[in-house]
């Protein structure tokens, strides 16, 4: 397993990629992307057993589904940095004829993407389908999915939650980006999530909680989640994250959900994020 320090270096580079991509396109979603940079780095560089040569069917490897597709910058960065496609391609994000569409899609054939996402609430259902298929095929690998917390306001999430528990889909680890923010304000202002751990528990899930911006905590919790596989219950990891984490002026509110920095803000952000693997 990679050392925590090394993972933190990768996460710093991923954050640089995120703000540079969004600046260059002058559009995109930096807030949630930055908040999930540690988790996505942990997943792709330590936790998952996956093959960057990429087979769509994902047989005998762990697979991941990004349900909150708007944080595509962090997804594209970790995919490129782990070898799914050339890092230089990150420069095409959100531009005409790119494979790196605003929201992830299989349509342009970008390796690493298995389903389109962006219209919220659909990713856990898709992950359930893959997890069930793996069980049918006696494939021992795991299925991961990430959703936003505001996304939990979508009804389909709870359809999938009920289904997964009923069918004992215990090779599925759902992670929630619990940053408390969404476009129009905080979750509590828009539509409170209430007792989130309790909700998942009463739906029949194993519930773990962790900081989503502390690499050691993340790795430990995700390791525990993996060990719960096969116990007859689906697993959810609620990750307390901070939107915009790593760039001080993007933290503390929902303001940077979906806007791009200007040149001055970009250089301010980059000054806070050491270049560790080399910019694209």
């Amino acid at each position: 397993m990679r050392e925590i320090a090394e993972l933190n270096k990768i996460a710093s580079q991923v954050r640089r990629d995120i703000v540079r991509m969004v600046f260059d396109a002058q559009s995109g979603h930096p807030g949630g992307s930055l908040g999930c940079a540690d988790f996505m780095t942990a997943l792709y560089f330590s936790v998952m057993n996956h093959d960057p040569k990429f087979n769509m069917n994902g047989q005998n490897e762990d697979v991941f589904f990004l349900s909150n597709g708007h944080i595509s910058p962090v997804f594209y960065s970790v995919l490129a940095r782990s070898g799914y496609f050339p890092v230089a391609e990150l420069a095409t994000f959100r531009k005409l004829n790119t494979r790196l569409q605003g929201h992830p899609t299989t349509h342009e054939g970008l390796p690493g993407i298995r389903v389109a996402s962006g219209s919220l609430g659909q990713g856990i259902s898709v992950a359930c389908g893959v997890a069930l298929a793996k069980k049918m095929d006696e494939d021992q690998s795991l299925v991961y999915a990430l959703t936003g917390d505001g996304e939990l306001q979508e009804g389909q999430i709870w359809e999938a939650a009920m289904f997964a528990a009923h069918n004992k889909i215990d090779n599925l680890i759902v992670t929630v980006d619990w940053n408390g923010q969404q476009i129009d304000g905080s979750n509590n202002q828009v539509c409170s999530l209430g007792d989130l751990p309790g909700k998942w528990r009463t739906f029949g899930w194993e519930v773990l909680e962790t900081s989503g911006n502390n690499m050691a905590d993340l790795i430990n919790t995700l390791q525990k989640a993996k060990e719960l596989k096969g116990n007859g219950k689906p697993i959810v990891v609620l990750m307390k994250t901070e939107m915009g984490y790593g760039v001080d002026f993007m933290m503390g509110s929902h303001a940077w959900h979906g806007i791009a920095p200007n040149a001055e803000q970009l250089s301010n952000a980059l000054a806070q994020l050491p270049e560790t693997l080399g910019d694209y």
Partner: protein
Amino acid sequence: MSVNNLIVNGKKATRDGFGDGLTELGRNNSKVIALCADLLGSLKMDNFKKENPERFVQVGIAEANMMGIAAGMATAGKIPFTGTFANFSTGRVYDQIRQSIAYSHKNVKICASHAGVTLGEDGATHQILEDIGMMKMLPGMTVINPCDYAQTKAATIAIANHLGPVYLRFGRPSWPVFTENLPFEIGKGILLQNGTDVTIVATGHLVWKAVEAVKILEAEGISCELINIHTIKPLDEEIILNSVTKTKCIVSAEEHQRHGGLGDSIAQLLARKLPTPQEYVAVNDSFGESGTPDQLLEKYGMGTNDVVEAVKNVLKRK
């Protein structure tokens, strides 16, 4: 070809054709998975479940989730068939189909029963008449609306070997079975009768109504060419253009809204390639209601006499 040569072998529901086709697939194709949203008996999926319990997924009353699960199954290399009513297979889950299935190129077969007014007494909440339009607008979606038990069974089996998303639409009522000896190929229309005065193109349950109408019209000396279009998308343009070149007028007949159905697809084709007078037999911008299938077809302008009248009207416009 003449409709008088069609061999009618009793009556069965198109949904029974789906159930029997699915049973056959269960025996011959281990990749086929059946998913159902609490309508096992209505969709005639019981036998598949009995023979392949490990490949049957009961999703419960959660159609959006079912479409996502199907997309995931297809990602993993399975061939999922979803089963619920046509209303809940399309309008209720349009965005899930659009994003997770159509845009994502997933090999999902969306199998939809109880389409149209012929589901009868349940009324307009369940009588979807817009589904063909919604589904044919999705890029890459194949749309098939078979006309009887035998054609539905053949279509069910055929779509398993077709790579890509498919919408298969069928219905509830017991209906004459008359295509047992006819070949089925996705995208190929079937010539049921040669004629010279008018082309009638029909799909789904309305094919039988058109057969009945042709017999009446022929007795009055009107020579009808009757084409069964089961695959609305991609449309068999050649069979329609060849016929209309000869007859110079056309009637389309379907159990669907006039807006967005087969008739619209034909009109678009003819406007581009061969402008031709056309009359529609279809629902005219209305919801249905409770009643028996035949009562409803008649009240909403889709009975045998409506086909006859449409032919007479279009002949005047030649």
